[in-house]
C-alpha cells in the first residue's frame, strides 16, 4: 500500500528541479528584456516599459553581484572597486542598522515601556516621563493603558495638570475610553458635588456625568465603585440606599470607616457615626498590632482617633510611627496631626488646655518657624481674660511636668503680653536654666511677636520694651 513512498524522494527532487527551472526561466525572461542590443529600433510603449523593467533587473543583478564581480575587474576599474569598499561596507551597515531598528520597533518600545513602569514603581516621575516621551506620541503604540501609565508618571513628576488632561481624554462622553479613567472622572464628579455653591442645573449636569462615568468605570476593586454608587444615591436623594451600600463596603473593608462616618454625619446619625469610628479604630488597631510597619493602617488609625476627638491617642500613634520609621514622612504625619489638633483647639469655643499643649509641642518641634509664629499670634494676641486663662492652663501643664523649658517660655510670653515684666523675666530665666538654647529661640520669637502685634498698641508696646541680651541670664544660677 505504501509502496509509492519508495520513489517519493526521487519525485521530490524532480519537482524541485522543475521549480528551479521555471523560476530561472521566469527571471531570465526579465533579464532578456534588458538586453537592448536592438535599441536602435523604434519600439512601442509596452515594449519600452518591458525593456525598462529588464534593464532594472539587470541593474539589480549587477548590484547584488558587485561585491564578488568587483574582484574580477581589471585596471582602473579594479582600483576604483577597491577604493569603493569603505563606501559599500559603511552604507550597507547604515542600511542594516536602520532596518534592524525598524523591524524591532515594538521590542524597542517595550523596553521603554518597561523603563517607565520601573520608574513609576521607584516613584521617579521625571525619568518615567522622559522614557515615556519615546512612545507617547506614537498613536499606534500608545494605547489607553499606556497613556494611563503616562498620566501616573506625570503625577509623580508634579504635572497634575497634564495627568488630568490625559485622564479626561481617556474618559470621553462619546466613546468607550478606559474604565479606570472613567472611575477617576466619576470621583471627580463626586468631589465637585460636594461643593456647596452649585446651582441646580449644574448639579443635575454633574449627576448625569457621574452616572455616565460610573456606568463605564472598571479596573478598580468593586468596593471602590460601590462607594461612588453610594455617593450617587446620596446626591440623588436616595438616602437609605446610600447608607446601606456604604455599610456593605464598610463591613467588608474597615479602612472605609472614615468615609462612612462622614456620610452618617451628613445623615445626622451621630451615635452610629461614633460606633462606626470606634469599630474602625479597633479593627485598625488590631491590624497595626499585627503589622506595625504598615503606614496606611497607621494613618487611618490616627485619623480615626482624630475624628473621635481623641487627640492624645492620635499623637501616640503618630509618635510610635516615628519611632518605627524614623523618616521625614512620619515627622510630617506627626506635625500635620498636631496642626489639625491646634486648629480644632482654636476653633470657637476655644479649648485653652489643648491650645496650651499645642503651643508647647510646636515650640519644641518647630522652634521659631512660621508654624509656631502663627499659633503664637492666634493664641497669645487675645483679650486679657483669655490670656489669663491660658496662663492658668500652662501653669497646670507645668505642674503635670510637660516639657518644662517650653512651658516656661510660653508663660514668659503670656506674662510679657499681660504686662507682668518681673514674672516674664523669671519664667524666661527658668526656661534658659533648663535649656540654655531657649534664649536664642526667645529672641527670634520676640522679634516676630513685635512685628505681629503692631495692630494692638498696648501689647506692641509691651513687646517692644522686652529686650533680651546675650549673657543677661546665667544658666548656672538656680
Amino acid at each position: 500500500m505504501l509502496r509509492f513512498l519508495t520513489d517519493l524522494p526521487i519525485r521530490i527532487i524532480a519537482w524541485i528541479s522543475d521549480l528551479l527551472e521555471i523560476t530561472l526561466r521566469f527571471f531570465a525572461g526579465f533579464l532578456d528584456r534588458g538586453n537592448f542590443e536592438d535599441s536602435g529600433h523604434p519600439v512601442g510603449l509596452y515594449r519600452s516599459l518591458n525593456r525598462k523593467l529588464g534593464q532594472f533587473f539587470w541593474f539589480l543583478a549587477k548590484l547584488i553581484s558587485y561585491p564578488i564581480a568587483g574582484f574580477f575587474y581589471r585596471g582602473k576599474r579594479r582600483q576604483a572597486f577597491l577604493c569603493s569598499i569603505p563606501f559599500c561596507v559603511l552604507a550597507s551597515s547604515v542600511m542594516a542598522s536602520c532596518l534592524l531598528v525598524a523591524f524591532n520597533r515594538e521590542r524597542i518600545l517595550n523596553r521603554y515601556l518597561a523603563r517607565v513602569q520601573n520608574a513609576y514603581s521607584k516613584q521617579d516621575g521625571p525619568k518615567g516621563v522622559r522614557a515615556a516621551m519615546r512612545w507617547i506620541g506614537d498613536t499606534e503604540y500608545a494605547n489607553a493603558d499606556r497613556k494611563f501609565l503616562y498620566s501616573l508618571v506625570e503625577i509623580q513628576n508634579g504635572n497634575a495638570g497634564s495627568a488630568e488632561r490625559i485622564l479626561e481624554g481617556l474618559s470621553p462622553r462619546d466613546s468607550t475610553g478606559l474604565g479606570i479613567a472613567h472611575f477617576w472622572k466619576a470621583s471627580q464628579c463626586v468631589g465637585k458635588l460636594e461643593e456647596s455653591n452649585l446651582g441646580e442645573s449644574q448639579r443635575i449636569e454633574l449627576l448625569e456625568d457621574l452616572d455616565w462615568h460610573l456606568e463605564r468605570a472598571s479596573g478598580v476593586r468593586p468596593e471602590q465603585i460601590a462607594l461612588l454608587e453610594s455617593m450617587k444615591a446620596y446626591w440623588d436623594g436616595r438616602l437609605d440606599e446610600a447608607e446601606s451600600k456604604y455599610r456593605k463596603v464598610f463591613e467588608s473593608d474597615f479602612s472605609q470607616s472614615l468615609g462612612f462616618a462622614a456620610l452618617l454625619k451628613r445623615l445626622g446619625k451621630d451615635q452610629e457615626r461614633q460606633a462606626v469610628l470606634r469599630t474602625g479604630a479597633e479593627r485598625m488597631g488590631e491590624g497595626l498590632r499585627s503589622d506595625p510597619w504598615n503606614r496606611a493602617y497607621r494613618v487611618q488609625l490616627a485619623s480615626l482617633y482624630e475624628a473621635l476627638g481623641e487627640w492624645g491617642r492620635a499623637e501616640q500613634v503618630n509618635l510610635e510611627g516615628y519611632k518605627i520609621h524614623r523618616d521625614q514622612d512620619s515627622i510630617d504625619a506627626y506635625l500635620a496631626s498636631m496642626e489639625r489638633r491646634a486648629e480644632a483647639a482654636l476653633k470657637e469655643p476655644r479649648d485653652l488646655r489643648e491650645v496650651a499643649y499645642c503651643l508647647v509641642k510646636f515650640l519644641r518641634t518647630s522652634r521659631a518657624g512660621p508654624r509656631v509664629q502663627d499659633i503664637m499670634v492666634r493664641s497669645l494676641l487675645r483679650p486679657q481674660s483669655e490670656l489669663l486663662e491660658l496662663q492658668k492652663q500652662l501653669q497646670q501643664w507645668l505642674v503635670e511636668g510637660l516639657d518644662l523649658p517650653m512651658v516656661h517660655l510660653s508663660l514668659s510670653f503670656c506674662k510679657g503680653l499681660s504686662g507682668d515684666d518681673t514674672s516674664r523675666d523669671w519664667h524666661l530665666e527658668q526656661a534658659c536654666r533648663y535649656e540654655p538654647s531657649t534664649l536664642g529661640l526667645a529672641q527670634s520669637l520676640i522679634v516676630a511677636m513685635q512685628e505681629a502685634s503692631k495692630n494692638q498698641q498696648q501689647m506692641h508696646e509691651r513687646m517692644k520694651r522686652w529686650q533680651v541680651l546675650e549673657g543677661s541670664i546665667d544658666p548656672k544660677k538656680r
Partner: protein
Amino acid sequence: MDKKITIGLLIAAVAMQTTAIGLMLKQIAFAGLSMDLALFFLAFALMVLTGMVTPFSRSSTDEHPIRARYLILFVSAAVGTCLLGVLSNDPVWVFRAAGLCFAALIALVAGFSTNRLFYLGLVLCMVPLSLWKTAPWVHSLAQWLASSFAGCLLDIYKVFYFAKGNVIGLVSTDFLQNESCSGLRLIYPMILLAIAYGCFNGYRFPRFLYLLCVLLFWAIVSQGAWIAVEAIMQDRQSTKVSYNSGTVSVILFASVTLLTWSGDQFFSAFFGPSSDKESETSIDAKKIELTNDKDISDSKVPWMVLWSMLVGIAFLGGWSIYKGQWAQGLNLRQYEAISAVESLKLESAVEGWKIGPATKSTESFSPVFRQTPDWKHWEWDLTPDQSREGSMKLRIDGIWIALPRPDWLWRWYGWKPDLVLSEDNGSFSFALKRSIVEEAYVVTKGVRVVGDSTLPGPVVQVSLVHESVRPITEKQRKEHKELHARGVEAIEKQLDFGAAIGDSIR
C-alpha cells in the same frame, strides 16, 4: 561678432547690477561670513583655473564650446531671478542673476564648455548660501534624519533616549543635546568642495547629482553618528560632557569627504567599462558622437533672443539705479547692532506679570544656519500674579539678516502648528501642539535693529510664548497679543538708534 556683442551685453548686464551686488557684499560683511566668502572665492578661482590652465584641463579634449541654446537657457534663468529680486525687493536674487551673467561672461571669454558653465553658475549662486531663507527648512530636514539615525544607533547600543523634534534628549539626564543637534555642520564647504571636484573631473549633471546625494547622505550619517557618540558619552552623567567642537567638525568633514570620494569610486567601478581596452573604445565613440553633433550657429534668431534678454537684465539694473532701489548705504557694524540688543532693558513687571531672566531654558540652541557668528538667544520668564493662570516666556533670537519662517524655532523642537499662521501688523501668531498634552501659543515679530522698515534687513525675533497643558482660550490669546505688542513697542523704542547713526542696513 555675435560672441563679442554677447560679451559686451553680459558686461553691461553685470555692471548695471553693481548697486545690488555691493549691497549684498555689505550684508555678507555685516553678517561676518568672511570664512564662507573666502572658501567661495577659493572654489571659484580653482574652477576658473582648472578651466584655463592646460595641466588641469584634463577633460578639455572632450569639451566643446558653449552652444547658443544653452546660453539662452542660462540667461533666461538669470532674467527670472533678476525679475524675482526686483519685484520681491530682495537683492539676493538680483545678486544671483548677476552671478549667472558673470559665469556666462567668463565661460564665453575663456571658451569653457557648457558643463563648466553649469558649475560656474552653480557656485556663483551659492555665495549667500547662509542667507537663504530656506536654510532652516533644509537643515531641519537633514537634522531630523541625522537625529533619527542617531536614535537607531542608540537603540542598538541600548541607550535610552527621546526626541523632541530634531533634538535628542537622554532619559538619564534632564537636558537636551542642543549643541550637537543644531543643524548639519560645515555643509557649505562640503558642497563647495563637491562642486569643485565635479568641475575638475568634468562630470555631467547626473553624475554631479549622484555625488551631491552621496555627500548629503554621508553628511547626515556622520552627524547622526556623532550625536550618538556624544549621547553615549553623556549617558548617566549629571553634567554636560564638554568637548572641542572644532575638532569634531574637522573629523566629520574629513570622514564625509573621504566617504563621498569612495562613493564616487563606486560609481566609476559600477558603471565603468569592464577593462581599459573597452574604456578606450567608448571614449572614441564619444568623440565621434561629439564631432557629429552640430551647433545651431548659422541662425541669428537665438542670438537676438539672447541679446534681448541681456538688454532686459541691464534695463532692470538701470531701472533699480534710477529708482534708487538698492541705494541705501550700510554704515553700521555688527558689534554695534549686537551691543544695542544686549543693552536692552525690560521692565521688572507688566500688568500682573513679573519679568525676570529665565533660570532654565531647555529649548534654546545656536543654529549652524545662523546668519551672524554672534547670534544670540535671550530669554525671560513672565511669572503671573495670583490672579492669573499659566506662565509665559519672552525670548529674543537673532540677529537675522533675513528672518526665516516665524515658526522655525518651534518646528525645530517638534511643535506642530495647530492653526494657520496669522499676521497682524507684522506680528505673526500661531497655536502649536506637541505630544498629547503640550499646547502653546506664540506671538512673534521681527524687530528691526535699525532703520527703514520697507526693506529686509537685520532683525531680532521677539517672541512671547505661552505653554500650557490646556488649549489656550481666545481671551488669553487676545491678552497675549496685547502684551506682546507692548513688549515689542518697548523694545523698538530702545533699538531705534538708526537715525542717530545715519543710513539703514538692508
